[in-house]
């Protein structure tokens, strides 16, 4: 299953890297088209004039605080000094619309960078799953989840879904245990290894085979027993093999 995990993880990580890099084009395109639709729905001519005034004022005065509340306060000040539009609500609505658009764009581009990073992490996870299966599998699963969430937010789900699926399969395959073969099953008498078919063929004498050379065994040399000092003498064949020790009955009889 490690090989299967590696193949799926490798393929999925390459696809994830390609689609994450494609997000550099597709996400800004989606942002521009969606923003244009939102601008067309929410922005009127007065809002355009108000935005123009606020932008020019920001360039002249050079603000450093770009939070939503700070921008609304700034818009109110511009509205009070404006000679074109006297309605403060238009300035506040304008700032709110463009702040939301800007914030959404910023978050989307950060998610593109995160997607590229996690695609690389998934690639590394696929490479290490051969040596460290658990670590590689968890890395691939985590990367697949992050890529999926990022693609959902940036509305580029369809291509990334396939890559995430491959990474998920690879990450799960690592944890599936390898099925055991029937040949390795243990019997009551101990481990039994069924011999292969080649080993089960009966022995057939090969008459054409060259004769096997055997090493000649040297004859046993007779040794002179009398020359052995301190050794146990060999028993006499005519008498008993071993001399029994004299018992009390024997001693009394002898006496």
């Amino acid at each position: 299953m490690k090989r299967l995990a590696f193949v799926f993880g490798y393929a999925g990580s390459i696809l994830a890297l390609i689609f994450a890099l494609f997000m550099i084009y597709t996400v800004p395109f989606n942002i521009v088209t969606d923003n244009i639709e939102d601008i067309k729905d929410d922005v009127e001519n007065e809002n355009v004039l108000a935005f123009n005034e606020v932008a020019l004022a920001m360039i002249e005065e050079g603000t450093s605080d770009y939070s939503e509340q700070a921008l609304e306060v700034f818009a109110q000040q511009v509205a009070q000094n404006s000679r074109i539009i006297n309605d403060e609500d238009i300035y506040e609505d304008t700032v709110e619309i463009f702040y939301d658009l800007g914030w959404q764009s910023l978050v989307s581009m950060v998610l593109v960078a995160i997607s590229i990073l996690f695609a690389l992490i998934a690639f590394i996870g696929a490479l290490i799953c051969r040596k460290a299966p658990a670590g590689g599998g968890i890395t691939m699963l985590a990367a697949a989840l992050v890529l999926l969430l990022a693609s959902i937010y940036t509305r580029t789900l369809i291509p990334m879904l396939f890559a995430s699926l491959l990474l998920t399969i690879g990450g799960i395959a690592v944890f599936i245990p390898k099925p055991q073969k029937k040949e390795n099953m243990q019997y009551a008498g101990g481990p039994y290894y069924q011999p292969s078919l080649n080993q089960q063929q009966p022995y057939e004498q090969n008459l054409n085979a060259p004769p096997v050379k055997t090493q000649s065994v040297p004859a046993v040399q007779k040794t002179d027993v009398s020359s052995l000092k301190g050794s146990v003498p060999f028993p006499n064949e005519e008498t008993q093999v071993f001399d029994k020790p004299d018992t009390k009955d024997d001693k009394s009889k002898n006496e």
Partner: protein
Amino acid sequence: MNKAGYIINLVGGVLAILFSVLLLITGSILFAGKDAYDFVSDNGEDLDEVWASIGDYNGINEFLTDDFEDYIDEYMQVLQEIDADEFEDMGKVYNIGAFDELADIYSDFEEYLPNLWLGFLVCLIASVIALVGTELARKYRVGGGVMVFCGAALTLIFSLVAGSIIPMAAASILLILGGVLQIVEPKAKQKLETANESEEVSS
């Protein structure tokens, strides 16, 4: 397997994929970036007039005289359908020199666009081939190495076709270097084989 060659090929393959996808940006900038910069610097003051002339030529009402939504829709439609001939015609009608420069830039870019798309697609496919060859070279040394070489050569050639060779050259060089390292038989294995051959001859 040569570990150094394997790692170099992995790095080169990932860089090749990165530069292949970015080829659309780098190729466009290297081809038309200087011309676009010169146009803006020479005709910066006339840009408002150019924009208004485009609207007037296509029958779009002036800014803030009509509904803002209609204004956006009409300009988007015009920009999608405009071509170099319309720019030249507008230059003659309104007697603005900027339109002639725009027409030249637009026509050159239109001729270059098919090469850019071809280079992008082939470089991307070649990068994937190189990465697959890197893994195959672990088991099939020569076959995998040949795949890596093919990928490197294709990325180099078609990045030249797309007009953006400099970033891709780095990735191609890494792939070629890694491919060489993976194809060349390790010295230890060579020594072992020659030692086995000499033993067989002596016996």
